């Protein structure tokens, strides 16, 4: 034992807290050369935080990181690069208007003695790096004209050209098709045989089982276990990911009525919706379950007039509708509480009441002019109804807590008399108390006969608050089931592709 060389990277008791969450809780992990190490866990389990600590983007609150047995501190992403860590995030870091070679040497151009850029040398080195990785892409190609998969490969080549010993990949196949994924996996395997270590973060269990040597499962910031892939079955992993949940009370009311509110048939868009069909009843909470990037938000966008449907029909209360703008969708009685309420939901230059009335200003018209007195009255009414803090009436909404902000956005759609409300991650980033408030509001809405399309990555929440759930993967609905008939285990199994279709 003593004579064995230390692992490439050893993480000891890493902890990292963000306001309100313990993102990492004394996680220990070894990463060995020549191994593909998969990091698994539900959304919010701490995978990305762990990767960012290794990439120097986050600083752990406590714990140690050892590189070949020697402790190192990564103050800055460039420190991590200097220590041989290359990271490929979900968003690409390539400049679309530059060529492949220019991107490879971005920020560290090779220079001739006179201080001029040595294009010849850069092109030659790029060619040899690409050849080494068996990537057949022209170094002079402009990145914008490459496919997403090719860009992904260039991103990896760029990372490898930094002579890194550890490659971290966060959801590398999210944007790739089947053939492209296979090509990427071949490349990753080749890198592993060259002695590189790879930390592979993915939601997709099927992929992980195809490629990984070892698997570490995280749950709520803690390491559940690390095992060799051969010792595991997929359902073991799913069970580890779910863990034993602390029993949480969800105040679910069943308010679904027999009448149909929304009927969707064979809906497809260019933006990743592939022939989905479902219906939502009056007063029903219809959940969309699936991994991030599975196409849930894209379905919402198609229904809200943001993405144009290519095929399929949508009926609202039996009437065929086709929205080309949100304005039309809203007029027909559809509302959207967007995932990112700060960027897409709230007006920070307004107090609460104007934030609530903005989608139905004509309700304030008195003799052709907006009545601000009426607006204040309406604001006060919703503040009471949804128990929003009264501060919302006087101050601009930037001063409100996340939960209060969310309720302001929901109040907007109540006031605009939406019949179908799309809630995209409505409890993301709000505390437990505010979550319960949101659930209470959902009950209140459905009691009034409003139908809800609920998108949530919090599976226990989704299962508890929905009447029925559709499991979405790759832009298609794989299964629709009554929420009571689906366990978190089954949902995760289907959504992560642990069962083949």
């Amino acid at each position, binding site marked *: 034992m003593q004579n064995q060389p230390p692992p490439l990277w050893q993480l000891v008791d890493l902890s990292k807290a963000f306001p309100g969450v313990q993102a990492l809780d004394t996680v220990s992990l070894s990463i060995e050369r020549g191994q593909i190490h998969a990091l698994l866990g539900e959304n919010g389990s701490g995978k990305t935080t762990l990767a960012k600590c290794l990439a120097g983007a986050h600083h752990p609150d406590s714990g140690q990181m050892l590189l070949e047995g020697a402790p190192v501190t990564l103050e800055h992403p460039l420190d991590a690069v200097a220590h041989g860590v290359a990271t490929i995030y979900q968003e690409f870091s390539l400049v679309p208007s530059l060529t492949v070679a220019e991107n490879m040497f971005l920020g560290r151009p090779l220079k001739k003695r006179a201080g001029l850029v040595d294009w010849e040398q850069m092109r030659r080195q790029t060619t040899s790096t690409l050849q080494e990785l068996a990537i057949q892409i022209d170094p002079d190609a402009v990145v914008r004209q490459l496919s997403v998969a090719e860009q992904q490969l260039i991103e990896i080549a760029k990372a490898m050209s930094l002579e890194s010993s550890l490659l971290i990949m966060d959801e590398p196949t999210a944007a790739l098709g089947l053939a492209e994924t296979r090509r990427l996996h071949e490349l990753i395997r080749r890198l592993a045989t060259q002695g590189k270590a790879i930390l592979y973060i993915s939601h997709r269990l099927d992929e992980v089982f195809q490629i990984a040597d070892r698997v570490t499962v995280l749950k709520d910031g803690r390491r559940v276990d690390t095992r060799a892939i051969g010792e595991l079955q997929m359902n073991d992993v799913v069970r580890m990911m779910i863990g034993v949940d602390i029993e949480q009370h969800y105040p679910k009311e069943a308010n679904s009525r027999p009448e149909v509110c929304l009927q969707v048939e064979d809906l497809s868009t260019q933006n990743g919706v592939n022939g989905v069909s479902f219906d939502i009843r009056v007063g029903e909470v219809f959940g969309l379950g699936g991994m991030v990037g599975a196409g849930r938000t894209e379905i919402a966008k198609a229904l809200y007039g943001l993405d144009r449907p290519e095929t399929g029909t949508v009926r609202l209360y039996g009437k065929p509708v086709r929205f080309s703008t*949100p304005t039309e969708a809203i007029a027909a009685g559809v509302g959207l509480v967007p995932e990112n309420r700060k*960027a897409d939901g709230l*007006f*920070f230059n307004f107090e609460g009441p104007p934030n609530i009335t903005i989608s139905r200003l004509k309700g304030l018209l008195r003799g052709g*002019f907006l009545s*601000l007195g009426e607006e204040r009255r309406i604001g006060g009414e919703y503040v009471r109804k949804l128990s929003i803090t009264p501060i919302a009436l006087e101050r601009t909404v930037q*001063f409100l807590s996340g939960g209060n902000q969310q309720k302001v956005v929901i109040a907007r759609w109540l006031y605009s008399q939406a019949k179908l409300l799309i809630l995209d991650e409505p409890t993301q980033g709000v505390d437990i108390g505010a979550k319960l408030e949101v659930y209470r509001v959902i009950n209140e809405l459905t009691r009034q006969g409003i139908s809800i399309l609920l998108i949530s990555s919090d599976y226990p929440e989704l299962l508890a608050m929905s009447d029925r759930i559709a499991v979405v993967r790759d832009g298609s609905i794989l299964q629709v089931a009554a929420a009571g008939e689906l366990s978190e285990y089954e949902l995760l199994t289907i959504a992560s592709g642990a069962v083949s279709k």
Partner: protein
Amino acid sequence: MRNLNKLSRFFIVGPLIALVLAVILITFTTDRFMTAQNLMNVSLQVSAVAIAAIGGTMVILTGGIDLSPGSSVALTTCVLAVLVKLMGLPLPLGILVVLVMGAAMGAVNGVLTAYGRIPTFIVTLATLSVYRGLAFLITEGTPIFNISPGLDRVFYDRLFGIPLPFYYVMVLYVMTYVFLRHTSLGRAIYAVGGNESAARLSGIQVKRVRLAAFVLAGFTASISGVLLAARLNSGSPNYGVGLELQAIAAAVIGGASLSGGIGNIVYTLFGALTVAVVQNGLNLNAVPAAWQNITLGLIIVLAVSLDMWRADLGRGLSRIFSFQRSEEKQDRTTSD
């Protein structure tokens, strides 16, 4: 919380303080400022800037900027001169035509920015050049004097002893105030400037709103142009140079945020008055024109940096505020 209100009120009243300070300062430097004749002059001078600043403020509220009003004014005076003096159109009809043309000039800006997705800065910088170029083209570069005897009266006539431009300014500002505060389009202008993405998702037709703001800006610029033509009873491609800067200065001194969504039209009027008073003071003290331009530039920089500091201050206050709020919450739970 009480402190916060006090502070924010201070910043709203800021433009008024700037005006009062400017007046006091100038009164001390020259005794020719506080005379009835001079104050009358100032209020006449301010009218063109104040009216152009209405449109400037509306564009700034949507998060854009309009650099073209100076050139729109020049083109308006020239077209009015050509229509009335050279083509013999009746004066009222001539005025009507140039006001419609003003709206059309604004529409060009609006279509290019909203539908062509070209930044407002670039579009209006281009039309700044184009509109003045057109003014030179139709006048062949020479001013046209004595457009019509009736035109003087538009500017110099009095009602109850007060010159007409005073009424134009008041009426337009009251209308704009009501428009911005009490109409859906006015509210939408603030919404688009505050958060364009949220505005779109709330059903606001963002492009139309942007277009409307520019149409109104073109319209007010042409009113400003008619006043300028009436004051000098002439049309010239050299009129209105630098007016865009004065209009922007008025809006910014008045507290309008260049990032959009925040501003109050009443304070734009104070801003315009401040610009006019400062200019008048420099004139009375016989400061050369070069220094007047430099002063205006410095005032704009000062006003914009106040806007930026205000944002920082706001963040600082919000931290203090959220701290206080949690205290309040505790108070409430204990009293319950």
